[in-house]
Structures are given as structure tokens and as C-alpha cells.
């Protein structure tokens, strides 16, 4: 069974690097703004920020093509932005407004976009994994070579339904890529405290599903692994597992003080392994961009996020009838 480590750095163009930089920054600034709006009481309830994990979705989206699908858990803002959903609609869903993707009825964890092939946003740990296999089943059934990225965390990897899904996906050779975003902590429980083996990507072996571990703080490595996984699925070989090693800088949700890890640990990741800093350095050192170029990207991103925040504040609350729309039984 293949368990590959990435050894060589891929060739990458300046334009692509700039695009990576912009996308990752867009996600980070979006999340920072969401955190601020939460602090101001404009967002209520549950809000799980993606800060630190940006390279995962940005790298994998770069390996995907039109018609490919994605589905994820409740830490979903980054996935939506990376697949091209409008930050305005995402932010307005967080604030529970009419202009949100689910008209305020879903909230942070529950939104969708048919247009962008984004199938949610699911609030129950692991519940989206069988759905991802179902999406891939439909892709195979209707012909063509499109694939589904099915994201879940290392905590969700202990849900029984994940293994029921692995079996069916392998049995029916479904074009599904199981992306395990391993950010090391399932809420407040570290991987070591709840998971019997260190290598989650090998868990497909019993089902004949190849897997590999990827450095999720390196967007280029993520993209390369994504391309391998996508090629495998497109060729009709069935599912593929990517365990992407990443890190969330913030708590599990807004109410989590994150006392289960040290400040030093977080600081070290931020300082030494930050995915955005990494690309920034590649851009500057490679002569692909000047500080001024990047400043202008920063400003563009900031404008988009401020617009999104304004929209999310100004969009009206949903009408009372909305409570009873889409109800059929």
C-alpha cells in the first residue's frame, strides 16, 4: 500500500503563488473578521474558525476542476471561500440574515451552494463522510470523471460511519477523496488521547484504499498530493485518502479557551510553519512579487472582507414566514 512522503518541491509559477497567497489571505481575513463580529455580538452561537488551516483547501482546490464537488464539516468557511462562494453570502449566514446562503436558517455550520458544487457545511462530526461517497456515486452513475473531495477531521476519523463508507467506496470504486484534515485536536482532546494509531492515512489499507500523509502547512505539497489523488480517482481506481497535517490557531469554537495545549505550541506553529508566511517568502525570495505587490493584494482582500462584513450587518433579518418555508411535513 502506498504511503508516500513528499520529497521534491514542484515547479510553480509566480502567478499561481500569488493566487495561493491571495486565497489563503482572503480566508484568514474573513475568519478574523468573523471573530470580530462574534465578539461584537453580531454572530451568535457556534463559530469554528479555520485560521491556520488555509493551505489545505486552497491547495486541494488548485487540484480540482469544474464539476468536481466538495463537502465538509462545521469548520466550513474556508472551504466555501476557496471554492468561490461569495464572502458576503457566507458572512451574512453567520450573522443570520436574509442575504446568507441559507437565508439565516442554517448558520455557520450549515450552508450550501449548488452553483459552486459545495454540499455543506454539516454540524455532526463525521456525518458528511457517507454523503461524500453518495455524491461520488452519483458522479460515477451519471458518467464522466468528476470527483468529490470529502473533508473531515482526525477526530471524525473515529466515527463508525467513516469505515462503513470506506468499505462501500472501495467496493464500488467511487471517485471520492477522503481528506482528513488532521489539526491534532478533536475539540479539547489531542489525537494521542483518543486515537489508537498515529497514522490515520493507513486506515484505508484494510479496504484497499491507498493513502498518504501530506504537509498541510505547505500549499504546494497539498496541491501535488491533491493532483495524485484526483488522477487516481479520475482513472476509475476508486477512493483515495489524504491525511493532511495542519493546525488550527484558534480554539475549537469561539467558546474554547484552548487550555489543552500550550501557548508556546501555538506560537511555534504560527512563527515557524505558517502557510501564508511560507508562500509570502516564496514570492519575495523568488522575485515573483515585491512587498508593494503584496501590500496591494492585502488591501484588495481587506476591501472584499469589509464589504462582506458591511453586507452581513446591513442585510435584513429573515422575514417571519421564513421559519415555515421549506417545511413539507
Amino acid at each position, binding site marked *: 500500500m502506498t504511503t508516500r512522503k513528499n520529497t521534491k518541491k514542484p515547479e510553480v509559477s509566480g502567478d499561481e503563488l500569488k493566487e495561493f497567497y491571495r486565497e489563503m489571505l482572503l480566508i484568514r481575513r474573513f475568519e478574523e473578521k468573523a471573530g470580530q463580529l462574534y465578539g461584537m455580538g453580531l454572530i*451568535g*452561537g*457556534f463559530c469554528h474558525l479555520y485560521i491556520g488551516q488555509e493551505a489545505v483547501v486552497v491547495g486541494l482546490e488548485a487540484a480540482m476542476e469544474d464539476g468536481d464537488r466538495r463537502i465538509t464539516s*462545521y469548520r466550513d468557511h474556508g472551504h466555501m471561500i476557496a471554492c468561490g462562494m461569495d464572502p458576503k453570502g457566507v458572512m451574512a*449566514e453567520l450573522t*443570520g*440574515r436574509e442575504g*446568507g446562503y*441559507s*437565508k*439565516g*436558517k*442554517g*448558520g*455557520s*455550520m*450549515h450552508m450550501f451552494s449548488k452553483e459552486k458544487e459545495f454540499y455543506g457545511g*454539516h*454540524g*455532526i*462530526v*463525521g456525518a458528511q463522510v457517507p454523503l461524500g461517497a453518495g455524491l461520488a456515486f452519483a458522479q460515477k452513475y451519471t458518467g464522466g470523471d468528476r470527483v468529490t473531495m470529502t473533508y473531515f477531521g482526525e*477526530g*471524525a476519523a*473515529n*466515527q*463508525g*460511519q467513516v469505515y462503513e463508507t470506506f468499505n462501500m467506496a472501495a467496493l464500488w470504486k467511487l471517485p471520492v477523496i477522503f481528506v482528513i484534515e488532521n489539526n491534532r485536536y*478533536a*475539540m*479539547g*482532546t489531542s489525537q494521542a*488521547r*483518543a*486515537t489508537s494509531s498515529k497514522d490515520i492515512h493507513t486506515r484505508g489499507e484494510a479496504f484497499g484504499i491507498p493513502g498518504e500523509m501530506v504537509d498541510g502547512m505547505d500549499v504546494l505539497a497539498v496541491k501535488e498530493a491533491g493532483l495524485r489523488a484526483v488522477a487516481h480517482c479520475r482513472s476509475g481506481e476508486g477512493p483515495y485518502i489524504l491525511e493532511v497535517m495542519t493546525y488550527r490557531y484558534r480554539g475549537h469554537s469561539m467558546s474554547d479557551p484552548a*487550555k*489543552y495545549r500550550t501557548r508556546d505550541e501555538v506560537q511555534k506553529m504560527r512563527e515557524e510553519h505558517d502557510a501564508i508566511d511560507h508562500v509570502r517568502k516564496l514570492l519575495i525570495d523568488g522575485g515573483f512579487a515585491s512587498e508593494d505587490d503584496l501590500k496591494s493584494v492585502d488591501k484588495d482582500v481587506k476591501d472584499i472582507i469589509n464589504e462582506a462584513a458591511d453586507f452581513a450587518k446591513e442585510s435584513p*433579518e*429573515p422575514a*417571519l414566514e*421564513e*421559519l*415555515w418555508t421549506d*417545511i413539507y*411535513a
Partner: protein
Amino acid sequence: MARMTMIEAIRDAHMIAMEEDDTVVVMGEDVGYFGGVFRCTAGLQKKFGVERCFDTPISELGIVGTAVGMAAYGLKPVVEIQFADYMYPGYDQIVSEAARLRYRSAGEFTCPLVIRMPTGGGIFGAQTHSQSPEALFTHVAGLKTVVPSNPADAKGLLLAAIADPDPVIFLEPKRLYNGPYDGYHDRPSVPWSKHPDGEVEAGRYETPLGKARVVREGADATLITYGTMVHVALAAVEDSGVDVEVIDLRTLLPLDMDTIAASVNRTGRCIVLHEATLTSGYGAEIAALVQQDCFYSLEAPVLRVAGWDTPYPHAQEWDYFPGPARVRRAIDTVMKE
């Protein structure tokens, strides 16, 4: 006596049960090292060791199933499911195994298992962190179902549940963890330290399963409820100016029908209130029993006030939530007849 939040009272009950009986073990997601997402098990692992208070993977089916096996062997597992909404993967084990073990072994095995779950809304948790699934348990023969409404009861009921030889589903209204909640979301919240039910007796005491509590005596109508809605009911009754008796069921099964019937036979009017959706909710069971036992005393049809038959919305939480205004309307209606 000490002032406690519901969280502290639940933690205290765990402490006492674990001190007294080393077959009591506590397990669940984040309960050990982290102390529980709502802090109900904080300090247990430190005090009793990792063997008796331990973290599980996010595997509700496996957690409940393992606990059933432990219970069958004579341990007393107290399981925390992090949110009642996460229970569904474990539901098969709850229904098919835990609830049925005594019956199908003709009494040879029992399943002394407590499954605690934070329940209900009021914290903007949207559809996957706000549900009230109690009727899914009361519908299953073989489960006792408990819903405390205050710290003092939470401690006494939890100790009774742990002492019980059979499986008990213990639903903790998460909106009440830190203070009573009367449904007026725009008013400042009151902490338990300023509420008489925040006074909790030290040491062991049990609040018996199957014994309701009349929280407000009244002559004109009976309002039957439990959990968070007890406080909503009291606020609504205060505002209505009608002399309504309010009954806190405390346990849904076993049900204290004697207290209910005595009250309704006296007042002749009855409203049932719960946060869970209306259709096939536990209110339907109460309404059916009331018409059966109190038919000739009734002056008006039994009314139900409940969550709407919709998923729990994110933005429109307070439109969904059966707050004091809806309860007052029901009081007006039941009094008109």
C-alpha cells in the same frame, strides 16, 4: 448548603457517586483531560484517575455499546454524549441493547447505565446543537428519562439515576447550566447564585425518579412542563395574572401521573409545554393521559405549547422557541372555555 450552578451540582453528584462506589466510571468525548465541553466533569480525572474518568474517541455508537457491556458486567458507567444532537449514531445501542437487556435476559442481566446529554436550545446552536429528543427515549420501552430544571434537582436526580439498576437517559437543559432562563431573551440573565434552587445540599441525597414537583400552586389551571420550560412557564404565569399551578415533571418516565391528575382534577384546565417539536412530542402523551384520567373534570380541551414542527433555525431561534408570549396566549385560550 452551598450555592451552585447546575454544572457544579452535576459535578458534585459525580464526585459523590465516584467516591462512594468504585464501580462508577465516567466516560465520553472530552470528559477527562479537558473536563467536558460544559465543564460538568472537570476535576474528575485528576481526582479519580484516568481509569475512572476517561476520554473516548468521537464514536457515539462505540461509546454507548461499550458502556452497555461494562454495565452488564457490573460496572456503573456514566456516559456523557457531548450534545443530545450527537446521540443518533448511538441510538441503536441505546434502543436495541441498553433498553432491552433486562427483558430479554429474563432479569439475569441489568444495565445500570446513565447517559447524560445536554439538551435543548437557547444558545444559537442551530439545528445540530439545539434539539430536544426526549420523546425518542420515552417511546422506547426500557428507558427512564430525566430532565432536571435546577441545580438542586440535577444533583439529586443524577445520584438517583446512578443508583438505579436500569438505563437512565439524563437530559440536561444546556440553557439552564449557568442560570434559570425565563424565555425573555432581551432581559439580563440571572445566575443560579441569585435563585433559591441554586441552594444545593452538601453530601448525598437522592431526588426520586418518578416524583414531580409543584413549583407554583394555583387554582385555575394546570401547566405541566419540564426542563428549561419550567422557568418560562413561571414567567408567563406571573405575567398572565391567572392563578395557574405549574408542575415540573422532573422525570418523564417514570411519570408521576398522581400529581398531574390531582392537579387537573382540581383546576379543570390543562396546558402542556415543551421545547421539542409538537407532533408526536411528549406533550401528546400527557394530553392523552390527562383526558383519560381527568376527562370528567375538564372544563376545556387540553392545550399543548411546543416548538414549531420545523428544524431548529439559526437566526429565528426566538420565533421557534415557545416563549412566555405563546404560553400566555394558551393560558388566555384555556381560560376562555
